[in-house]
């Protein structure tokens, strides 16, 4: 809302210091955006919150100034002289849709001479950024900007059939607006129609047909009330927002319907001549509120934490237009003014007092009781994941939760169901809630490659959105940790292992509960044969997919312009919040010397490392301090085709005493036997 300083001073004496004025208004709820000079005048731009339609007119702002600076408010009292002839002989008004239009009034002035507006009116409008059109149109704009009640003026001669019908539009009905464009209306739009068709989109914009022009002789002044939702639906649906629709969406002061009509008539008579017809033609009922609001003694201090003397409270509310009613002991009773329909409850009265008395007086040094706070399981899991990824040289990325069709089509390890779709799209084309972070991260990696940003190993912690079976419930939102790194499968797996280990789950820890199982999978994201899932096995809960990982397929790399071998993983963090209830106790390191043994185990190509490791682990038990795979080699001549040699290094150590050479040899022999039985391994 832009207000003119000169215009405001019609109603209240302004302080000389415009900066002080702006400051006080801001601190009372009308945020100051800017002040600029326009000729001799100052245009002050104020931000008006949606609960204060009264301040969408100069009078409302002037009232705030009067209260803040304790000065009298002078308002015009328009009493336009009526001539011969009855308005009701000129027009009939019917409301067919009272929900959309509870109240409608028409005044008629005959014999006007429409021409250019006088300089003072042109200047006023210019200060607030409104172009002058002609006397009649300028008056309707002036009155709206004065009191916040939008008006419309019709050329009476252009209204067919001598009648006004306020009704819902017929679906598909067409309407030529004052901007000379045609609009197709919907059934939830409200129109002002004459005997033949729409002449205005109610509360939004007039029609081209009945526009006031130089040839206009008889004028109908419309002043009414329109439903905020109907006005908003039409204004937004047709892209036709106007100063009028903006105000009707916020419910202007009902008392201004009549005042504005008389004020406009009075100004038109003054500027364009003519004869005001007797009376007004009205339909519907003006809703009036008579409910008074109680304010308990002590309530203000209870909410604000500072005392405000009772007489100060009373003076403030009275100045704002609230009228005190007789009340029972222990409180006061207040009837709000018609322009403050936002004030309905005791707490609203408290806010009125607070904003005028001043929030700067509220103490800022009261104490609050101490309260213990622990890091939540989710915070811990996310923090640990971030620590590991950062230590591993990965940058945390943040990508959009909503993706386009192309990214969505890359797929998800978590759901095969179609993605949830939103409207409007988040950004152009992006209307699908992602089921995996990996496509977005791969895209980000691709963008880094395109600008030659250098090494760009990325990770992200965010939610995915998985459609639930039925659409009544909320979707499942797993919290995911995803990473895209340069390197082969082992690079991604090493990272994932480090994260899981730091979270208290070791991939290598093959026994105990919860247990992790790594299995090969095929997925479009990954190169065939080079992808796996990691399953979490919990007692009584079975196997649960915790993560997938693999080398990104050539097709997907090509799609995002990623050169070289790239690997990725995506892990669910949410199960980790509950998976690890009790961290294992700390084991004191053994003081006895270790025994190191290297074994060269030859197995069939089909035997996975995990089987060999399991056999070694379960046979060696507590004596196995460390198991390390040194290398895997193949040689058709030395070990035969279809076979591989696993060179493993064992560190054996006892907590009970020094392992003798014989004891160690016996353990190794049992390990070799176990690997032979379980995996067909032979010692080379």
């Amino acid at each position, binding site marked *: 809302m832009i207000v003119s300083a000169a215009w405001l001073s019609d109603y209240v004496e302004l302080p000389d210091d415009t900066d002080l004025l702006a400051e006080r208004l801001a601190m009372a709820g009308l945020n100051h955006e800017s002040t600029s000079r326009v000729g001799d005048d100052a245009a002050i731009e104020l931000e008006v919150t949606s609960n204060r339609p009264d301040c969408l007119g100069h009078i409302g702002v002037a009232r705030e100034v009067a209260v803040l600076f304790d000065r009298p408010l002078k308002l015009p009292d328009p009493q336009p002289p009526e001539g011969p002839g009855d308005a009701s002989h000129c027009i009939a008004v019917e409301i067919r849709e009272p929900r959309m239009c509870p109240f409608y009034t028409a005044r008629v002035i005959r014999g006007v001479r429409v021409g250019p507006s006088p300089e003072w009116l042109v200047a006023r409008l210019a200060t607030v950024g409104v172009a002058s059109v002609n006397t009649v149109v300028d008056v309707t704009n002036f009155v709206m900007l004065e009191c916040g009640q939008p008006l419309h003026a019709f050329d009476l001669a252009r209204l067919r059939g001598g009648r006004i019908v306020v009704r819902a539009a017929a679906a598909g009905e067409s309407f030529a607006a004052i901007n000379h464009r045609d609009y197709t209306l919907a059934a939830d739009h409200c129109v002002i129609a004459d005997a033949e068709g729409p002449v205005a989109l109610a509360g939004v914009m007039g029609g081209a047909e009945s526009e006031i022009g130089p040839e206009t002789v008889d004028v109908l002044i419309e002043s009414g009330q329109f439903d905020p939702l109907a006005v908003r639906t039409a204004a937004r649906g047709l892209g036709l927002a106007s100063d009028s629709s903006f105000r009707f969406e916020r419910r202007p002061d009902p008392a201004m319907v009549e005042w504005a009509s008389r004020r406009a008539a009075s100004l038109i008579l003054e500027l364009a001549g003519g004869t005001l017809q007797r009376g007004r033609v009205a339909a519907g009922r003006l809703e009036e509120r008579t409910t008074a609001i109680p304010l308990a003694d002590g309530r203000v*201090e209870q909410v604000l934490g500072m005392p405000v003397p009772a007489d100060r409270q009373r003076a403030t509310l009275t100045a704002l237009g609230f009228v005190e009613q007789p009340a029972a002991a222990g409180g006061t009773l207040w009837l709000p003014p018609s322009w403050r329909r936002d004030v309905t409850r005791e707490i609203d009265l408290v806010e009125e007092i607070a904003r005028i008395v001043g929030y700067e007086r509220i103490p800022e040094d009261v104490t609050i009781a101490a309260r213990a706070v622990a890091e939540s399981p989710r915070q811990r899991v996310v923090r640990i994941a971030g620590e590991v990824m950062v230590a591993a040289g990965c940058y945390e*990325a943040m990508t959009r939760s909503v993706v386009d069709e192309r990214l969505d089509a890359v797929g998800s390890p978590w759901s095969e169901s179609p993605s949830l779709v939103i409207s409007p799209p988040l950004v152009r084309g992006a209307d699908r809630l992602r089921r995996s972070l990996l496509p977005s991260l791969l895209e980000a990696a691709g963008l880094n490659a395109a600008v030659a940003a250098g090494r760009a190993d990325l990770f992200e912690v965010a939610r995915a959105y998985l459609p639930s079976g039925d659409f009544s419930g909320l979707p499942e939102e797993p919290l995911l940790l995803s990473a895209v790194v340069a390197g082969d499968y082992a690079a991604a797996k090493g990272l994932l292992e480090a994260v899981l280990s730091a979270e208290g789950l070791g991939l290598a820890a093959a026994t105990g509960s919860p247990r992790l199982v790594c299995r090969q999978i095929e997925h479009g994201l990954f190169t065939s044969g080079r992808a796996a899932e990691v399953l979490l096995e919990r007692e009584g809960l079975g196997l649960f997919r915790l993560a997938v990982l693999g080398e990104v397929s050539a097709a997907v790399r090509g799609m995002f312009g990623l050169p070289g071998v790239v690997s990725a993983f995506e892990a669910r963090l949410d199960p980790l919040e509950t998976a690890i209830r009790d961290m294992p106790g700390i084991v004191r390191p053994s003081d006895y010397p270790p025994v190191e043994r290297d074994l060269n185990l030859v197995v069939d190509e089909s035997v996975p490392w995990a089987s060999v490791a399991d056999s070694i682990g379960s046979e060696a038990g507590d004596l196995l301090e460390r198991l390390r795979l040194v290398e895997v080699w193949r040689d058709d001549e030395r070990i035969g085709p279809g076979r591989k040699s696993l060179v493993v290094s064992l560190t054996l150590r006892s907590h009970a005493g020094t392992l003798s050479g014989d004891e160690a040899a016996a353990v190794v022999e049992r390990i070799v036997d176990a690997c032979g039985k379980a995996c067909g391994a032979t010692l080379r």
Partner: protein
Amino acid sequence: MDLEAFARDLDRLQEEAEAAFARAADGDTLEIARVEFLGAKSGRLKQAQKSLSLVDREAKPEAGRRFNEAKQRIAAAFEAARTRLADRGAEAEAIDVTLPGRPLVLGRLHPITRTIREVQEIMARLGFESVDGPEVEDQWHNFEALAIPPEHPARDPLDNFYLAVAGGTDPLLLRSQTSTVQIRVMESRRPPVRIVSLGRVYRPDTADATHYPMFHQVEGLLIEEGTTMAHLKSVLRLFASSFLGGDVHVRFRPSFFPFTEPSVEVDMEWGGRWVEMGGAGMVDPAVLEAVGYDPDHVSGFAFGLGVERIAARRHGVADIRDFYRNDVRFLGQFGERLR
């Protein structure tokens, strides 16, 4: 064998060993000498030890003493040679100390994450626990419980990301504020409540230097008996002083939010001027009633901060879209820094 012959052999062995160790010019020749004299299986000292058994019985104690003495001297000579060679090695390999170290590549947390964590930590010190909730919400939690009725403009389809579901009457939507989490917490707990909810929120907006349709909010909520606006102001002042450093004042300007009453904009002194940090207010009695609390018995306050705005200002980022471009040349610049 008599003692004299044993001692003579031992003296020669000691002399030769000392000479060989002294002669050794590098690690390899020293190692050859070590094996020759001190080898565990067939070194010459080991052989001398074996010949000890051949010494006449009555001379054995003296022979043993002499042997130990020689053994210690030879070992000392070896140690001396090894130390000498090690020192010389160091001299030989003098390096360009200005060469770079072996690189240790560290990643970085995202600046938005860093800002959120900092806010969380400060609020935790003030007794606020961090909570989390779904990003796809129902209309009850995103609107109704927050005193935003069906006809309210904030629920307009063009101002929200509703889920497109055929036939649904109350479609789900991407939450437009993290206050939804506050409702969920209040529905499941009795007062006192002291929480910060945080995370991604979504509002249709054309992306530009200061707007993005997806952004992050941190919202605090305190519900306790006897809570006043003075508590709100004091908590925000403590927050501001911790976050910005020093004794920072806060300023309230009246505002309007459906779920708080009174509602205020919060300004903090930052870099010598008032900077708008977010919105706040006393929790509206209608909201307390919606979650089953009795507004006559408990009261509370809520406040919300826009994370992108704070992070952008703290780090001098002119265009918030940079936060979502994920260029590592941008992300790599966010290290620890002093205020």
